[in-house]
């Protein structure tokens, strides 16, 4: 490669004769083609050096343009090479994640980034049109990796790193952050999101959406359609879409009808088990921190969370119990859920309707939180203690649940394991153990034996 490059450099500097020039031009083009082919080589080292070499070519070509500037209205950026590189990087058959992470270093340069973005938009449009919007997991994955590795500068003044040097006037013409860069970024993402995505990519995308995509868009409101669609998918994807929606509602004045109704319906037994539990409860806490929420809504949320708590693991319970208490503290009228003295002391059936989708109709306010009373018999002492709090009026001070959000079961175990047991000796079982399967109601002995009979 070095030899060829030298040749090419020679062609630029020395030769004055046309014939020689044409010959050299042909050689150069052939060389570029071969390098582009090498981008799909099996060995990563070859791919990597081909990529580096191509980018050096592009830099050289930018400084010493092949054509005269007079009839080129654009400034002389080697768009052809970049487009070809991008097309090869986003291969349909091989996963180029490693190579793309190598390419990230070139994306630091502002003009390269700009042209890569526009090239991506074009190529995605072309490819997806060709496939009529069907899923192309490898291709989409490559595109997504490349797109998510683009990190946008936050201020105009940071636009200083260029592959091809530019004068001041031109710079503002072509690379003003607001006009060109952000718009290119936005178009690229919208072009990508237009098409159907595989569900795991949905999740990845939604995870990064609120902090690395939305702030860099010139009109974040354009994402509304995508986010509302995602919010209506249900399950974990809805949970993740919440974050982006929150940004839009909070900062961009999005008016989302039935937002709370949908949030209410998101509460399923799975929320306590998914990976994004901490994020969900953090956001739910934010959404429900408003003091202007109607009473029926808060009661419905409280009752539903309490009902779900019947299936939650102890770590989830340690979040949800303080969560419920905080809700009741913020809305003191909800105290009837815990304390409803009545003259006729008759037992009543739970009027709450779990299957009702509308929080206004679920009759949560008429109910009581018997579930928490149930949890007073929970096996974990911390949960049982937390549930005991309903028997006395709640204190004024809200509990901080942010520390509990990331609690894992092992950490909970460590609380007991690491506790110094100096004060008294450890209680022991007093029924003498004679057989492995005996004891504790003989459940094990009833169903299992030490060795099979056969």
């Amino acid at each position, binding site marked *: 490669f070095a030899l060829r490059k030298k040749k090419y450099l020679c062609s630029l500097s020395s030769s004055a004769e046309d014939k020689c020039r044409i010959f050299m031009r042909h050689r150069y083009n052939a060389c570029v083609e071969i390098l582009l082919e090498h981008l799909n080589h099996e060995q990563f080292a070859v791919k990597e050096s081909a990529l580096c070499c191509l980018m050096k070519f592009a830099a050289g070509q930018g400084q010493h343009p092949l054509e005269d500037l007079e009839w080129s209205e654009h400034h002389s950026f080697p768009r052809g090479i970049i487009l070809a590189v991008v097309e090869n990087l986003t291969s349909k058959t091989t996963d180029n994640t490693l190579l793309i992470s190598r390419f990230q270093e070139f994306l630091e340069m502002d003009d390269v980034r700009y042209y890569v973005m526009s090239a991506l938009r074009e190529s995605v449009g072309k490819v997806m049109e060709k496939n009529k919007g069907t899923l192309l997991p490898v291709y989409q994955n490559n595109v997504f990796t490349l797109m998510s590795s683009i990190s946008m500068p936050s201020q105009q003044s940071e636009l200083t790193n260029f592959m091809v040097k530019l004068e001041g006037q031109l710079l503002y013409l072509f690379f003003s952050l607001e006009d060109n860069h952000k718009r290119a970024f936005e178009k690229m993402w919208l072009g990508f999101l237009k098409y159907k995505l595989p569900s795991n990519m949905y999740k990845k995308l939604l995870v990064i959406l609120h902090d690395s995509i939305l702030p860099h868009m010139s009109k974040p409101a354009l994402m509304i359609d995508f986010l509302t669609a995602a919010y209506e998918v249900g399950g974990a994807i809805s949970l993740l879409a919440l974050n982006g929606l929150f940004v839009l509602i909070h900062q961009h004045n999005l008016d989302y009808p039935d937002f709370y109704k949908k949030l209410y319906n998101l509460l399923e*037994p*799975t929320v*306590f*088990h998914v990976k994004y539990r901490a994020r969900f409860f953090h956001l739910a806490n934010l959404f429900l921190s408003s003091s202007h929420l109607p009473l029926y809504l808060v009661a419905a949320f409280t009752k539903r969370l309490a009902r779900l708590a*019947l*299936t*939650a*693991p102890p770590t989830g319970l340690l979040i949800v119990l303080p969560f419920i208490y905080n809700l009741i503290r913020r809305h003191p009228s909800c105290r009837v859920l815990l*304390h*409803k003295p*009545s003259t006729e*002391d*008759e*037992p*009543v*059936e*739970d009027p709450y309707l779990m299957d009702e989708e509308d929080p206004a109709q679920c009759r949560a306010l008429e109910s*009581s939180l*018997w*579930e928490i*009373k*149930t949890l007073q*018999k*929970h*096996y*974990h*002492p911390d949960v049982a203690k937390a549930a005991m709090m*309903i*028997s*006395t009026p709640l204190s004024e001070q809200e509990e901080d649940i942010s520390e509990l959000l990331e609690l894992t*079961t*092992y950490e909970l*175990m*460590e609380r*007991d*394991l690491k506790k110094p*047991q100096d004060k*008294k*000796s*450890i*209680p*022991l*079982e*007093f029924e003498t*153990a*004679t*057989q*492995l399967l005996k*004891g*504790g*109601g003989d*459940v*094990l002995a*009833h*169903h*299992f*034996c*030490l*060795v*099979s009979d056969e």
Partner: protein
Amino acid sequence: MGKAPKKRSLADKVRKTKTNAAIKNNPFEVKINRKKFDVLGRKTKHDVGLPGVSRSKAINKRKETLLKEYKQKNKASKFVDRRLGEYDAKIAPEDKILQRFALERQRIHEKKDMYNLNEEEELTHYGQSLAEMEKFNDMVNSDDESEEKGLLSAELTASHFGGGGGGGLLRKKTSGEQQQEDGNQRAKSRQELIEELIQKSKQEKRERQVRKEEAQELTEKLDQEWKSIQALMVKKTAKAEHTDKPEEKPKLDEYDMMVRELGFEMKAQPSEKMKTPEELAKEEKEKLQKLEADRLRRMMGEEEETKAQSQTRIKTSAWNLFLSPLIFSDPFFPLVGFLFYNFIKFFFFLAPESYEDLKDLLCGHTPENQRLIVARTQKCNHPSLAVGNKLKLQKLFGFLLEYIGELALRTSPELTAVDKLLPELYALCQMSPEAAAAAVQLVLADAAHSMEEQIEVKGHAPFPTLDSLIYLKLTALLFPTSDFRHPVTTPALLYISLALTKCPVRSLQDATAGLLLCCLAVEYVSFSKRFLPELINFLTGSLHLAVRDKTSLGYTVAPPFRRAGKCSDLLVLSDPESCRSWRKKPLPLSATRCLELKSDLDRDHHRLTCLSVCLDLVKRCCLLYNDLPSFSHIFQPVGSLLSKHLSIQTIVCLLQELHREIMDAISSAPTTHRRLVFNKKKPIPLKLLTPKIVEVLDYGKKRGCTREEREKERLKHKYKKEFKGALREIRKDSRFLAREKLNEVMNRDAERKRKVKELFGSLATQEGEWKALKKRKRK
């Protein structure tokens, strides 16, 4: 010289006290302070005052201090006593005098005797030269007197009083002696005699000193020996006295001995009476009841000091344990009886120092023999036999635990061996609960940690292996599972919960392991009836695995189960007809790891077994959680699943009974509850207006405030008192000074008056004389 001032001061004191007594008895000097109340037994210091004495004392004091200062006022020069050590309080007066004397002598010596060749200065006695006195023989012995003071040995008296008849003074005796010797024996010069005498007395003195020292040494030695014995004596004095007494007594005659023997003869001691089996059972029952009550208290989470704890430990005499089963009634005995070496090896097991040692020890023995070996090791190393044994046995517990884990992990798990080792493990655990708890905690923490790590990486984890399951079961056997919070069983339950929520069921083995965990969970909470949501979730999920038609579910399943998808039909029978040949039989524990199911029929049978286990567990849970207020909501998924999807018609006839029981339990549960209300608070009592009467027990003391306040009050009072006292003193001082000044003025005036008078007088006489002269001249 040194004694003179001391004596005087003593005399002063005597005189003073005398006067004091005189004053005290003088009714004109005494002022009696009237008391308001007479309190019996109270000693008052100030009932009698001596105003005259105290006033004169105060005046004297002022004269010594204030007056001196006043006299020194406006005077620059000062009188300084330059005598040696005059202002040094450290030197004793005798030393001071001696030093002064030495200094004086030195000064005189330097000045006067500069050219004095005679080294010895002149010795004096009462101011007279000794050299002069030598000439008078009778004056000599006063020097010896000080040495021989109080010394009256026989020899000396003989030598002194020997021949002489009179008992006069010493100097007379010496002269008498001399005369006698002169007369009887050959003449000995007086000088020699004296020397001899001195020699003798000195020797005697030395001897006396030596003897005294020896005596001193001996006493010290005796003291030390006594001290060493004293400790023993204190304890056993009573006994020692008791044993000593008969020895001291004179020999007794036969009759006496007989009587005494009869007296001391072993009488039937009242021992604990043999208990009838009923009584024993009753006692045992009482003990168990006590322990049960204790357990219940802990279950409620009440924090109290456990006193009954020590009782639960088995206390057995080591030797008793060691000897009884060991000697003959032992199937192991003939095995090892051949060689003494073997005997030693097998009967006196050393506690293993490492896990490898234990493995070597147990390797190749049948389970029963392994148990015997461990039991013997434990008995040979009973803590009461040697100091370090407790630690050894604690280690042994850890090794055994590890060994059991290994046994469970072998390709064909040797669970019978585990079963046999269990009683030993239990006994070891009872012996040192803390160490055992720490060991089990370590094992659980390791298992949970590795699972948590896998969950962090992959989001789920495989089911715990058989060793972890065995450990969990052991935990339940060794420690109480019903405690509100227990350092071992609470983490164990959390571990079960973690496994039940994070381990997806992907095979029949997984399902078996999951059901085993469920069994364990039910056992853990069977006594305390605590609510374990994960258990219900898992059982619902397992039943869901058996549902054929996964559309239109009337319930939701919680993770790790999914509504539909891969591995969600694990328990669906491949052939509905296979249930005809199925009989329920217990599953082997090894089924959690490997299953040899060749045919579809076998697999279906296993599925049916799992299903029956699952239904049985659901039934047990129904009974356990019957009292919970949300019972119907907890079991709503199970109920709808069983009624709609696994209805009684579709299920095997053997399981129909279980099915019916569950449905009955679910439907019969009460669905109505009382509304929640806060616990009733104790009403705050109204303010009462009747005066509060407090009985005052200690009169005169300030009460009702904190200690600091009282201290402050006391200081304030003291300050006030001192301030007043100081003011009074100052007033008295100024009065004293004024009086002194007045005195001075008066004295001065009187002096002047006297002088003027004198002058006038002399002038008058002069005048008189002059007039008389004039008269005479005129005449």
